[in-house]
């Protein structure tokens, strides 16, 4: 009963505090919208890249039809190279004409390669342009609407779109900040103000008191994830692929891990003035190193070595794999184990450092 009442009270306090509301919910969305628009949508405004391959007569016709358009960049080359270009993001659409010259009056085989993930952007524009051009050529050259027999082949692009990469990172980052600060600052404040002393005078067992604090933050973490995912789906066309069960387990364990870290920070911090600095010193470098906004593949190997073991790295990768990476709970076992180990370490260290009384001893009265 104490647990339930404490959980209710903790959740209430976080939702009633405007300051913490901002940090829990508005701040991550600001990040996502800023990064999403600056980096994610930027690609859509560039030129349309069309690759042409195969029979030179027909490629020349297409080039003549589309080459005059300012926004269109045309590349001619080998089929394989161009199709790989779709995977690398160099080409939006590749058109390949059968190089065996067709008999006059016979249809010409055409294959169009495209990325279905780009249909809403430049890829869709490019495909529409190509279809239009082929239609025009058919009428103009032969007077035959059915000159081309078109086969369309989708090219599965493995790489995540930037916003799909970003969204789980934003969730991981928010969970870290909220749980770390949402536990450390209140704990130190309550200790200094003597609220912890009031609690100590009751019969509630310490683990129950702390578990309820932790559970309150887990509730916040799930609310954050829900809101960020909803915004991602509605405004950024993020496609969820994976296991929501897996993501929930990651969220639960991740919030527990960050809460335990927050309790450790509260134990280390002597006064309320130092708690935010200590928490920031831990959270800020971790935010960048853990691949929140971009992968750190290009960093030097020693830095990547550090990054690979960080708590947030496992939270981010666990969320990414289960939300947009198509993986299931079983696939992310290593990340779950790493988080469990960190959680155990943090809880152990925090329980050694936990104090009910402020550092400055009151011996007055």
């Amino acid at each position, binding site marked *: *009963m*104490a647990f*339930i*009442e*404490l959980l209710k*009270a903790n959740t*209430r*306090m976080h939702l*009633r*505090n405007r300051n913490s509301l901002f940090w829990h919910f508005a701040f991550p969305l600001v990040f996502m919208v800023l990064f999403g628009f600056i980096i994610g949508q930027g690609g859509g405004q560039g030129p349309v890249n069309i690759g042409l391959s195969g029979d030179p007569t027909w490629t020349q016709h297409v080039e003549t039809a589309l080459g005059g358009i300012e926004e269109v960049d045309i590349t001619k080359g080998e089929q394989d190279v161009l199709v790989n270009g779709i995977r690398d993001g160099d080409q939006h659409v590749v058109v390949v004409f059968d190089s065996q010259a067709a008999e006059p009056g016979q249809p010409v085989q055409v294959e169009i390669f495209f990325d279905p993930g780009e249909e809403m952007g430049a890829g869709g524009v490019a495909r529409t342009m190509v279809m239009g051009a082929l239609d025009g050529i058919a009428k103009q050259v032969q007077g035959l609407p059915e000159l081309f027999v078109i086969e369309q082949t989708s090219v599965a692009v493995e790489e995540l779109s930037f916003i799909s990469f970003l969204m789980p990172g934003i969730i991981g980052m928010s969970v870290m900040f909220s749980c770390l600060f949402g536990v450390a600052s209140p704990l130190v404040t309550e200790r200094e*103000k*003597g*609220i912890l*002393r*009031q*609690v*100590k*005078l*009751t*019969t*509630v067992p310490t683990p129950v*008191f702390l578990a309820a604090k932790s559970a309150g933050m887990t509730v916040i973490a799930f609310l954050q994830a829900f809101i960020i995912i909803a915004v991602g789906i509605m405004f950024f066309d993020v496609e969820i692929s994976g296991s929501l069960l897996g993501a929930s387990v990651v969220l639960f364990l991740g919030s527990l891990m960050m809460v335990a870290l927050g309790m450790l920070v509260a134990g280390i911090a002597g006064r309320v003035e130092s708690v935010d600095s200590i928490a920031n010193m831990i959270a800020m470098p971790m935010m960048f190193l853990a691949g929140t906004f971009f992968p750190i593949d290009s960093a030097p190997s020693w830095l990547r070595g550090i990054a690979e073991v960080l708590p947030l790295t496992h939270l981010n990768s666990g969320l990414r794999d289960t939300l947009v990476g198509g993986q299931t709970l079983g696939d992310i076992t290593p990340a779950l184990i790493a988080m469990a180990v960190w959680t155990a370490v943090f809880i152990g260290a925090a329980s050694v450092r936990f104090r009910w009384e402020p550092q400055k*001893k*009151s*011996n*007055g*009265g």
Partner: protein
Amino acid sequence: MTSNTVDSASTRNQADSHGGSSMVSVRSLGKNYGSLRAVDDVSFEVARGEIFGFLGPNGAGKTTCLEMMEGLRKPDAGTITISGIPVWPDPAKVKRLIGVQTQSTAFYEELTVQEVLRLFGALHGRRLSKRVLEDLLDLSGLAEKRKAYTLALSGGQKQRLAIAIALVNEPELVFLDEPTTGLDPQARRRTWEVVKELRDRGKTIILTSHYMEEAEYLCDRLAIIDYGKIIAMDTPVRLVGQLGRKARINFTASRPIEGVSLGLAGSDVGAPNSEGEQTLLAENLDDAIAVLLRTANDEDIEIKNLQVRTANLEDVFLTLTGKELRD
């Protein structure tokens, strides 16, 4: 304790001699902070239903005494039992018997008064019934503030909420640590009424104060404490009575009057304060006035602003320690 014979008429004020009815029994309590003896060989008994007060200046050891009884601070020496149960080494055993109002009156700011009360009830493993909640709100005079955030309460309301929190587990013994410090006179009166109401309900109360009027008004018995030691313990009336016809005489003299020149046994004249006012603590009011005026006349000293006040606890403290209760 030797005798357990219960003399019903005298249990209230004679707790020392009737251990069987004691709510609290403290023996040779001691606590050191480094070389400082914060609490030094303190012993006393508190009877059931009694309001027992610790009176002393800041830093005298009142709060330390209380914290050891509450199970918050481990004593270096001595024993404490509450209702026959030793507080140490396992303070958890007495938690359900006691309610504590600590000196700090900070609460969870984003919770309302009734939410805080419910929460603390739950922390004690109790679901507060509507009746209990209403009673606590009425008792503490916070019924109208039940839905106010604790952040918005006045100082007096916060103190009374702290008392209400101390009562959520329906304790037999209530500790109030300086319940009215920092309050204006009106808010202080209001808090006193709450304490009286608690006494009428049969609660045993131990409080600390450095307000003499408060101790005099509320307490059945008082321990005057200074430098960690109990220097006097009795009812307020008897403590003052010990001073006999003692009185405090304040005056302004045109030339400072030396105490010796008065030739009054047991009386003492302090040096003039910054406003030139002198205080004479007299053993016998009538003699002192006569001698003072004769001396002034003989030595051609003009006496002004003559004020006479019979002794109170402040003077008891001054007599016992040679210093004022509030510096």
